[in-house]
């Protein structure tokens, strides 16, 4: 009976995650909803239009999560795998910001762009796995650093830190953001000339992604997250070459996820090690869904093409960015999707610090990209067709 319930739960996790991934991949492709680009373009082009839609996404998710919590649909609130804030969040966020700009997309941007045929993103994906493997080597040291720099032990969210319930802070923030959003709307900030077929306005993408995030929280029991699966892939590959090293690794042996599934009541556990567990059942289908959702969207629009003629400098940047991002997503822990779409809506202190690191990181990444990868004097190197 217990085994049957577990099988049902795993099927629900895998099927639900695949469906959510397919939806998220298609939405992100149609809108080119690049989270990395939002932060990068703020500094490179003083462009804030898509960053405003991120505010919309976070606040919409905040209201949906709070509504679901009040209805008793989120029994694991605040979600598993969120910890008390520490200096690691801001350092990890900063490094992550550098990596995502160099890679040309964040952990999820890499997936939807790769699905649409981007060779650069496929290279960044390899880097993400390599970076996750690298982090395993510093895990014992970094765990100690996190322990020593934790600010409010036992307190995960801002309301917990200040000792109030989440409803009032959420409503206050939502009201302030609502006024801001209405002002932006009046200024025409969300209006855009749709120049291409199948285009989805970014504000609509934001609302659809907020809905997908809510479904993940209710059906899976966790917000959207994918980077532990990159560490698992790294573990599997490393195990082929160095099985003893992987077996002895504290990082690959750790099982940080423990929770009761909100719908079936099954007890679930998972970690970054190379074994099949709840994280594998959730994140691999989600990753596959985002890649295939984007690929299907691109194929339906006749836009799927593998581009092979990429400047070598850009490929190196994508690889390096992927490595830094993979490393930072374990250091932070975890990635921007987890913090922006899962942590900020519940006002997690760690996610606020991660966001604080992301801005200077994106600025630094932009400086590196424009000075080392895309030199200003490279007009002669532009791919000009005669």
């Amino acid at each position: 009976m217990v085994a049957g319930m577990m099988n049902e739960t795993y099927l629900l996790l895998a099927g639900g995650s695949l469906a959510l991934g397919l939806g998220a991949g298609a939405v992100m492709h149609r809108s080119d909803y690049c989270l990395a680009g939002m932060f990068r373009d703020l500094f490179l082009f003083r462009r804030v239009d898509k960053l405003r839609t991120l505010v919309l996404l976070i606040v919409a998710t905040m209201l949906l999560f709070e509504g679901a919590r009040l209805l008793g649909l989120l029994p694991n609130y605040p979600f598993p795998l969120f910890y008390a804030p520490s200096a690691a969040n801001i350092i990890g966020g900063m490094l992550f910001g550098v990596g995502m700009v160099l890679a040309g997309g964040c952990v999820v941007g890499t997936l939807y762009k790769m699905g649409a045929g981007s060779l650069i993103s496929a290279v960044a994906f390899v880097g993400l796995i390599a970076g996750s493997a690298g982090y395993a080597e510093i895990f014992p040291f970094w765990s100690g650093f996190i322990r020593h720099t934790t600010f409010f032990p036992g307190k995960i969210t801002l309301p917990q830190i200040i000792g109030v319930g989440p409803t009032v802070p959420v409503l206050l923030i939502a009201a302030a953001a609502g006024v801001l959003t209405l002002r932006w709307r009046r200024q025409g900030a969300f209006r855009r000339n749709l120049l291409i077929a199948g285009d989805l306005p970014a504000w609509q993408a934001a609302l659809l992604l907020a809905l997908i995030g809510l479904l993940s929280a209710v059906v899976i029991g966790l917000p959207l997250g994918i980077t532990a699966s990159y560490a698992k892939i790294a573990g599997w590959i490393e195990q082929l070459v160095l099985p003893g090293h992987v077996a002895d690794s504290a990082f690959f042996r750790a099982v940080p996820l423990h929770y009761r599934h909100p719908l079936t009541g099954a007890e679930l556990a998972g970690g970054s090690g190379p074994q099949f567990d709840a994280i594998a059942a959730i994140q691999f289908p989600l990753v596959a869904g985002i890649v295939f959702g984007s690929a299907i969207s691109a194929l339906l629009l006749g836009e799927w093409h593998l581009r092979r003629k990429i400047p070598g400098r850009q490929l190196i940047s994508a690889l390096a960015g992927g490595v830094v991002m993979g490393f930072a997503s374990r250091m932070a822990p975890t990635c921007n999707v987890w913090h922006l779409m899962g942590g900020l809506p519940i006002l997690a202190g760690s996610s606020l610090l991660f966001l604080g690191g992301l801005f200077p990181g994106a600025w630094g990444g932009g400086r590196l990209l424009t000075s080392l990868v895309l030199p200003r004097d490279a007009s002669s190197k532009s791919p000009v067709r005669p």
Partner: protein
Amino acid sequence: MKTIEYDIRGQICPSTLLIALREFNIHQEALRDGAVRLRFLTDHRDCVATIPESARNMGYTAEVTREQGCYLIEVHGG
């Protein structure tokens, strides 16, 4: 009118927009005099909006047409 075509498909973001902006500046005078026309081939969905917007903000005319699996953005002095 001289036509210069840039194949910037598949490149890392935001290379596409940066190359376009750089070429607008390099060919500023020729664009305004109507001596040159710039054509950008891109598969970057966001840039199909941002390149024409930037061109129009600089006073140029921009047109977008669909090509096989990508988009052609044509910019001229108008």
